[in-house]
């Protein structure tokens, strides 16, 4: 039973298909027939293939590179090294975090898998034959494998390319109030501490990254087909990096086989392919392999977190202290708003009402791939949510209070919204207690606690894990948010054709989220044009308005709002035309979906289709013809979706394996445009949360070798391991969003890992176990039980031992 502010019946009939309808997806038709057009499907005349030679070692000086044998292989057109690129000032490029990154290594290699040279050849088999013929001499250096080692006094300097760089720190950033937090801690009856490593993970969409770069030798115009979640931003960055005038670059992001943040950074392969096309005068395709994707492209997480929660004996939280050390790899290339060096991690205060928090973050360079902000993290909210929900769970054990009860005692209350958090967020709306209570009801919480107690008597281990997360998405307002200086508005351009159909062009870019359907539904809601009559176009910078793209769940909050606003602009203009057609005053007209009619005389009306035709054929004197508009939307605030997840597990103490018996997820993302699509997003996120909790991570050995750079080691669960999910919802609209919607794409990935891990910990808590780092592998569970009383044997899992 869900109580909602959203009417359970949509305002439009199914034939129009506005908000609330679970319309079947328009984009499906091509994918079902195998007629999707992904980057690797694109074939251009005379196209060449690029392959990249990568460093086998994590840290070394390049003594020499001999490409002569490779260049002589029949079918090879060019071999490119860092020295070649340096001649065109392209050996280094800026990152989205104000650092620089090597395109092809010149002096040193700084991570295993780093790009060292590239071969351009007539076909990919020949290109790979040529890679084998390139001879590189490396003088190996001591690798830096974890951030603590990186910040030690005697650590080898990784970024000796940066003038004035001393040591391996790449940023330091803090939020909150140290003094107020110290005072709060002084009042505490109990302080709960947790040291936890959120291991390195990787978005690993099933389509790897790639591009086809086609620089026309006659015109100098570059068309780059690219796996890009943000084509306009990429075009601007390309212009800055490659020195090509922006109007001569067209980026086309065709169908994208999953993004999850992996397709936001600019990779060396794109730059090399474009430079090669420019110099050779033929199109060049670069598509990476899975191993290349995992070892070198934008990874996720790798946060070493220390949290302290101060509480009163009655369970009231007083304050939070967090110290976080991030492993940023060899180049600081996080794709995040420039002001925030640790993304939005400082929302780590979570769903709870307390006045004081202090968050100190530091980042270190290591000899690993660059990146960090990716994989449905909402700019580090995954890490933050994990820490607070694990702390609260442990606090419950410390105080002897039920974990649900402790949360209910501390939740921000509905009457406190908009809620100003101690680290500066203004939460727009929420009802956390309602979501948790619904989850508890759905799972049968009280019965489960009884069952758990009985099972313990028989030595059977059942665990119940909770997570009540608050997300923050929809970047973002110009005052706080920019990427490489570009503010994070988004845009929508809408034209209604004479026949009453429409085309909507967007600055965001779906990678599976269903925009061709959901955004059409927004227009259908506002204008009453059937959603099936509305074409949605994204991804081509020549044919769409400027936007910052799709990641961090921003499309609906920002792009969706822009769409609402432009549709309303057109409806306002439509009213003028309707008045003209009906020979009535505008204020005498009423609107129902798809139709204006005269107040009191409903039979006297015109459809939106009539109006559309008239916009071209019969418009009033002095009115600009046509029915078209564009809106750029600068969101006033972020939106704050939230939810409560409850996981029930059974643990086999002998083997350490655990199985999910139930997973109940209650999500609140405000108004749901297409419930079917929203649920699909949640399913995907819950599966990814399970993956991280259970088996999926990238780690390194003490020699800096990457373990997890292929699918034999980087484990993505199959349908067999992935649990079943039970979904429910509450609806608390966003007060500032024009249709009350919040983003949802990442909620489940943000909120669920803690729920799974808390469940396993809960099964073992009575033995004294308080922490097992993700992934909670069988051998870690077994070690934790064996060492019970300690904290999982002190094993930190993914933190590699320094050499």
């Amino acid at each position: 039973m869900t109580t909602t502010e959203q009417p359970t019946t949509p305002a439009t009939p199914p034939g129009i298909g506005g908000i609330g309808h679970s319309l079947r997806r328009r984009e499906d038709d091509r994918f079902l027939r195998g007629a999707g057009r992904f980057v690797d499907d694109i074939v251009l005349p005379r196209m060449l293939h690029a392959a990249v030679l990568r460093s086998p070692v994590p840290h070394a000086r390049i003594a020499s590179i001999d490409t002569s044998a490779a260049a002589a292989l029949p079918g090879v057109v060019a071999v490119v090294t860092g020295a070649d690129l340096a001649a065109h000032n392209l050996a280094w490029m800026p990152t989205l975090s104000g650092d620089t990154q090597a395109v092809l290594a010149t002096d040193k290699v700084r991570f295993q898998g780093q790009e060292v040279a590239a071969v351009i050849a007539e076909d990919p088999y020949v290109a790979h034959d040529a890679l084998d013929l390139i001879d590189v001499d490396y003088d190996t250096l001591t690798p830096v494998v974890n951030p603590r080692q990186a910040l030690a006094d005697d650590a080898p300097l990784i970024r000796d390319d940066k003038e004035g760089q001393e040591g391996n720190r790449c940023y330091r950033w803090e939020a909150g109030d140290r003094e107020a937090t110290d005072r709060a801690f002084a009042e505490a009856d109990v302080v709960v501490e947790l040291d936890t490593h959120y291991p390195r993970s990787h978005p690993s969409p099933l389509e790897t990254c790639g591009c086809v770069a086609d620089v026309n030798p006659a015109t100098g115009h570059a068309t780059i087909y690219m796996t890009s979640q943000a084509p306009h931003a990429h075009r601007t960055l390309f212009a800055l990096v490659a020195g090509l005038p922006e109007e001569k670059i067209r980026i086309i992001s065709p169908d994208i086989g999953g993004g999850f943040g992996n397709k936001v950074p600019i990779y060396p392969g794109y730059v090399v392919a474009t430079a090669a096309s420019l110099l050779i005068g033929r199109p060049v395709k670069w598509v990476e392999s899975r191993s290349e994707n995992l070892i070198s492209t934008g990874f996720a997480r790798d946060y070493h977190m220390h949290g302290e929660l101060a509480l009163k004996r009655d369970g009231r939280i007083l304050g939070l202290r967090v110290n976080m050390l991030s492993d940023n790899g060899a180049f600081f290339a996080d794709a995040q708003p420039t002001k925030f060096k640790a993304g939005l991690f400082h929302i780590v205060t979570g769903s709870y009402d307390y006045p004081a928090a202090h968050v100190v973050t530091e980042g270190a360079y290591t000899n690993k791939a660059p990146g960090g902000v990716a994989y449905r993290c909402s700019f580090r909210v995954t890490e933050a949510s994990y820490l607070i929900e694990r702390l609260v769970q442990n606090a419950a054990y410390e105080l002897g209070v039920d974990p649900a009860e402790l949360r209910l005692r501390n939740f921000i209350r509905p009457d406190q919204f908009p809620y100003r958090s101690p680290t500066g967020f203004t939460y727009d709306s929420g009802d956390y207690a309602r979501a948790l209570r619904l989850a508890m009801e759905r799972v049968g919480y009280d019965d489960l606690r009884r069952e758990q107690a009985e099972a313990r008597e028989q030595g059977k281990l059942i665990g119940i894990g909770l997570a009540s997360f608050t997300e923050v998405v929809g970047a973002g307002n110009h005052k706080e948010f920019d990427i490489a200086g570009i503010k994070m508005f988004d845009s929508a351009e809408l034209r209604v054709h004479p026949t009453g159909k429409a085309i909507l062009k967007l600055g965001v870019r779906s990678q599976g989220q269903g925009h061709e359907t959901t955004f059409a539904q927004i227009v259908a809601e506002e204008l009453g044009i059937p959603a099936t009559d509305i074409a949605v176009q994204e991804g081509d910078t020549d044919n769409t308005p400027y936007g910052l793209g799709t990641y961090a769940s921003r499309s609906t909050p920002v792009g969706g709002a822009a769409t609402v606003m432009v549709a309303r602009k057109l409806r306002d203009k439509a009213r003028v035309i309707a008045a003209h057609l009906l020979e009535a005053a505008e204020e005498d007209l009423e609107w129902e979906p798809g139709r204006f009619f005269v107040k009191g005389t409903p039979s006297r009306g015109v459809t939106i289709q009539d109006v559309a035709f008239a916009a071209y054929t019969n418009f009033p004197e002095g009115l600009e013809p046509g029915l078209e508009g564009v809106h750029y939307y600068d969101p006033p605030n972020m939106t704050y979706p939230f939810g409560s997840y409850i996981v029930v597990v059974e643990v086999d103490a002998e083997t350490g394996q655990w199985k999910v018996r139930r997973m109940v997820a209650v999500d609140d993302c405000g108004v749901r445009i297409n419930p079917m699509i929203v649920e699909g997003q949640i399913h995907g996120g819950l599966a990814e949360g399970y993956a991280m909790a259970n088996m999926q991570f990238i780690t390194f050995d003490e020699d800096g070798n990457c373990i997890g750079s292929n699918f034999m080691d980087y484990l993505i669960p199959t349908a067999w391991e992935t649990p079943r999910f039970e979904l429910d919802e509450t609806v608390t609209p966003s007060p500032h969003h024009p249709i009350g919607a919040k983003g949802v794409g990442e909620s489940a990935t943000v909120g669920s890992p803690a729920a799974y891990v808390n469940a396993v910990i809960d099964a073992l808590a009575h033995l004294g176990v308080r922490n097992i780092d993700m992934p909670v592998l069988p051998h870690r569970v077994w070690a934790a039980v064996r060492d019970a009383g300690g904290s999982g044997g002190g094993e930190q899992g993914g933190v590699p031992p320094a050499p």
Partner: protein
Amino acid sequence: MYPARFEYEVPATLEEALAVLAERGDDARVLAGGQSLIPMMKLRFATPAALVDVNRLPGLDRIEEVDGQLRLGALVRHNAIADSDLVRRRNHVMAAAAPWIADPLVRNLGTIGGSLAHADPEGDWASVMLACRGEVVATSGAGERVVPIDELITGMFTTSLRPGELLTQVRVPIPSRPNGGTYLKLERKVGDYATVAVATRLEVDDGRIADAGIALTSVGPSNLHAREAEQVLVGEHPGDGLFAEAADAAARAASPRSDVRGSAEYKRHMVRVFVRRGLARAAELAGRTTAA
């Protein structure tokens, strides 16, 4: 991603295949299911000068019962074994192991002969064969040799197959006494190699264990035949205490490595757990079966 070049031979008869293999010697690799070889070639860990595709050879894909043995052609695919009613009735261990090899798609192409000839220490069939006293038929221009599994696998990815020999058949004795067995595999997901896996088999005669088979996967440089553990069991009455003793012996025989799948200590512990559980299951099944 892209294999290096090679020459391709696709013989139509066994005679042709043997002639090509004899001629090419070490330059050639046999292509059966290819589900282990081709991935290695794509990563360029294997760059054979020639591939001899044996998939067209007739008569190598049968599963039959002959002379008290289960006989499987070398080209029998893993899924054919998993779906085989004959195997289900005649060999519990094989029936238990087959569904857990790789994933359903790989099982459609991968072969038991190819798997044994590949000799991956994390491969499953060799452990099954060791526990079941299996043997293979190695065929060459000079004739046929029957090779017990213990003598076939000589190390990591190495067998005692001679140049010019092709593995053509796998043979497993069918017990005449009440018997049971299973294969327990700890894998993190479908398609993963075993962290640890154990094949167990018991034959019972008049309440006592007449024969036992225990073999271990992924806890040594090659599949491990836990002979001392088997000896603990022979002649004794089945029971938990006995099984725990055998489990200890098997754990002592194992030499696992610590890696991302777990510490050596954990893997040894899992050997113990799986031997105990496997023997209990084998005894339970033996209690249910009558002589064939």
